[in-house]
Structures are given as C-alpha cells and as structure tokens.
C-alpha cells in the first residue's frame, strides 16, 4: 500500500509556520534527540495577565512530518490560554493535518510533548506550580500511553501491548511487552520507552522484555 503524506502535511513542511527561536522566552522545552532522528524545541511568550500564548516558535531537527506537526501545533496553540493549549492532543494535531501515516504518528506525539513541556516549564518557573514526578505504575503508564507502535500508529497501552509493569525497591523498572522477537519495531519501541522512562529523575535500571 502506498504510504504518503497528505497535502496539508506537505504544505506545512514546505512552508512551516512559526519557525525560529524566541530570544528571552518565558519558557521553552526540547523533546527527542538527534540520535532518535528527531528533536524539537518549542519556545513560548505568555501574556502574564491573560495567560494567553502570544508568541510561539519552534526549531526542528527532523523529517517532514516532524516539521509539519511542529508547525501545526504552534498554529493551534498560538492565541490560546495555556490551560486550553495543554489540552491539545497528538490525535487532534494529526487530524488537523488530514492524518499521518501510522509510522509517523510518533512525530505528532513528540510535537505535543514539546508543547506541553514548554507550558509545564512556564507553570513551574513563572507560576511556581509544583509537580509530583514520583515513580509509580500510573505515572509509567501515562508515559507509555504516548509511545506509538509504528506499524499501526496507535499507542502501546491502547493496543494492550504492555503486559506488566514492575518497579522494585531500587526503582528498577521491568516492562513486559507482548511482541514478537522479530517485530521490526521492537528496537524503536525499546528506545522510545527507555527515553521516556529516563525522564523520571529517580529511576533505576530499565528492563524491557518481550513476552
């Protein structure tokens, strides 16, 4: 079956909106890494009084869908109050682009992560909000909720690919995935899960087993 980008994706890739860096931003966040093939930085300026995002920019190291999703989420967030902008989902962003190929859905997740990350930083640093980032099954599951299985473009929790989440007293984590050992996405999933779980500052060793 032909895999192709929608016209909307191509449009945003060719002429992306809000490209660049904001000098002295109110908040910024970077998600992904060049090693994974995509990295996105989102910069924000927020109006203190109204909490409206008055300026948003991004810089991307990534493929066409990475650039296009970054362009669309910055469009969607611009002019919204941060509480509303936080609610934008990766699914909405993908829909706004007329859809993304399953293998590219993770780009939309990355874009939303970067946006939410920037907002969270704003809330932390400018509004003094405190976040509980402790390690537990729910918080791990929440992270895994954002890991997309490239074959079908759906997250691994919804697909019930996660069979077990274990945390021991040393904060070592065991994730059991119901996946064939020859699955071509297994390395990508392992990489993605590890990267996400490493966001927990106190996490120990991460073991991912295929069952």
């Amino acid at each position, binding site marked *: 079956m032909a895999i192709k980008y929608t016209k909307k994706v191509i449009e945003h890739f060719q002429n992306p909106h809000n490209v660049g860096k904001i000098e002295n931003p109110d908040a910024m966040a970077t998600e992904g890494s060049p090693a994974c093939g995509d990295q996105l930085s989102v910069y924000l300026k927020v109006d203190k009084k109204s909490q409206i995002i008055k300026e948003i920019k991004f810089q991307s190291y990534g493929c066409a869908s990475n*650039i296009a999703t970054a362009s669309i989420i910055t469009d969607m967030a611009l002019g919204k109050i941060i509480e509303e902008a936080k609610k934008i989902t990766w699914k909405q962003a993908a829909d706004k682009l007329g859809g993304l190929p399953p293998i590219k859905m993770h780009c939309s997740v990355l874009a939303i992560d970067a946006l939410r990350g920037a907002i969270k930083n704003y809330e932390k640093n400018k509004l003094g909000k405190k976040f509980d980032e402790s390690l537990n099954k729910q918080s791990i599951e929440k992270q895994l909720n954002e890991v997309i299985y490239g074959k079908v473009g759906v997250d691994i929790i919804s697909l019930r690919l996660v069979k077990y989440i274990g945390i021991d007293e040393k904060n070592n984590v065991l994730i059991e995935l119901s996946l064939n050992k020859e699955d*071509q996405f297994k390395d990508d999933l392992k990489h993605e899960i590890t990267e996400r779980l490493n966001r927990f500052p106190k996490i120990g060793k991460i073991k991912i087993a295929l069952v």
Partner: protein
Amino acid sequence: MKKNGVYLDNCKTSKLAPEVLDEMIPYLKGKFWYPGAFTSIGTEIAEAIDDSQKTIADVLNAKPKEIIFTSGGTDANNIAIKGLMRANKNVGKHFITSTISHPAVLAIFQALEKEGYEGTYISANRDGYLNLEELKNAIRKDTVLVAFTHINHILGTIQKIEKIKNILAKANHKIYLFLDSCEAFAKIPIDVKMFGIDILSISAHKFNGPKGIGALFLKKGTKIVPIQHGITRLHHLKPGSVNVPAIIGMQKAVQLAFENFEEQISKLRKLQNLLHNTISERILDVKLNGPPLGERSPTHLNFSFSFVEGEAIMLMLDFEKIYVETGSACYSQGLKPNYILMQTGRTHEESHSSIRFTLDRFVTKEGILRTVNVLEKVIKELRRRSPFGEN
C-alpha cells in the same frame, strides 16, 4: 522521468534504456514462442537465448552453459545460497557472510539459521572493507560457503575479491565463494576465473535492463540442489516459464553497458567527481561516507549533511524532481537508521543525515549541477529550521 528530472537513485533501480525496449518489443509482440527443439519457432527462440547466455558469459569470462536466467537478483541469491547449503549439508552447515551484506542476502541466511544452519558474520571497517583477518579466523572444518556483497550498495565499497580467493585457497577443504554482484556488474570488470568465484548473481534492472530478470553464474561442478521444482525449460535450478523478452532485454543491456566500457566508466567517474567536488565546495559540514573517491564504485556517492535529517532533504529534493535515497531512520520501515552506516562506525546523526546519490548512463553534467544548486538551497533552509544549524 518527469521533465527536467534528475534521477540519482539508480542503485535502487534504473531506467530501461530505449535500445533495450526496442530489442524486447518483437518478443513481446510476434515472437511469443517458447524455446524448443526441432520446430522453426522453438529453435529461433532457443538460439536467441543461447546468444544471450553467451553475451553474459563473455563479459564474465565464463562459459555460456554456466549462465542461468532467474527472476531477478533475490531469486538468484536464493537459488544459489539455499541450493548450495542444502546440497552440502553432509560436509557442514556453516557459512560466513558479513554484517554489511545486502539485506536480501542477510534475509536468506536468517532463514537458513532457522533451518539449523550456522553463520559467522564478519565486520567491516569505516570505509566498508571487510575485515579479512576475521574471515581467516572464521573458517571452520564445516564451513561450506563464503558469501559477500561485491559492491556495497550504501557506501560503494568494492571488496577485494582476489584477497578473499587467496584466503579460501589456503583452507584445507573446498569452500565455495558466492558473490552478490548485482550492484557490481557493469560498474567494474569482473573475471570469475581470476576472482575464483563459484557462484555470482546479477540483476538487469540495476544496469538499465528490464525488471524481473537476473542471472546466476554457476561454475561447472558446483554441488547444488534445486530449491524450486517444476518443469525444466532452460535449467533445472530455475523451472517454469521462460521470460524470453526480459532475457533478450537483459542481453541488450549487457551489450550497451560493455560497449566502450572504459569510456563509459571514465564518463561516470567525471560526473561522480563533479558531484563530489561541487558539494564539498559549496556546502559546509558535509562528510563523505565510504572509501576515497577513486577507490569506490564509479556510480556511488554518499554524504552526511550535519544538523539536518535525511528524509526532509530527500523530500525537498523530490519537490524539485531530484530523486535520491536516505539512510535516515525516518525513512526506514522499522524506524532504524541504516545498518550499514551504523556498522561502519557512523553515529545515529550521521546516518539520519545521509543521502545516497547513485548515477547511471543517463545522468548529465547539467543534471549534476542542477542537483547541487537545489541541494545547497535545501540544506540552507533545513539548517535555518534546525536547532543545531546556527552553530
């Protein structure tokens, strides 16, 4: 090809030469018969096939009977590798290949491993040359086959076959040498006798011939069993219908590739140099992947463009009708960077930002210059968008 298009992905597949199509048409229209004995129409086709075998055999320094037509490179590789391993399992079940072999070859070995065969995968250095010390050490009493890719399809590295031959000659028992020469054939001279090759595969669509046709050189006396079964028309290793038009087309493609061979290669080298030099002069922070220019396949160039990602480069070139290939994970089926670039010591970033350019007889100087003009703009624009581009 779209108007003004520049096709630089010839390693994936190449354009059918018009002369090849002209040669095929009579066999697609009127001369639809099968090769056969005694009848006038059967004989005419049989003679045409004999002639095609001879054409291929001559350029390889082989005998016409040692040429078997297949349905392409993958088909040829399967017939050769599986047929040879199965035929010699009383001698042993061990094979040696490389971590940077072509994926079509690696897939066959992975399938054989499930059948109980055992493999050793030797590594390659940064330029893509096989580690021949590892080859020496990998040889065992039960080693039946050594199988390598002749020219690496990603890096353009030409393996030193005579050195491999010398290593195998020192073994205490016969070890067969198989080469996947699909990328090498028509790019470099191949002499199967001089190189000590037992089996070699080629594929017509890699050198401006038709798709769905390839050939095996099988040295007389090689112990092999068929992996496909049916009615033998030309050879028992490849039963079934004979794709006569494609065989005729392949013959013509071979003739075109080998007439004034040196001259054609020298023209390709000039274009390769032009592409290499103009990219190096006009775009900063680029790295050539693979061996030095003069050592590599005359049709291959592979560059990594720092701070940007390959699929984005490839698509922006595509918008301008310039067609290339990338080693980026974003373009792969399993979201993994190209394994050959990784196995030969590139970082993830270098693999993600790699672009392969592969030339053929239809590439022109104008096409190369247009490519670099567009590429320069594309890289500049993508670096403007990149968080790393401003450094």
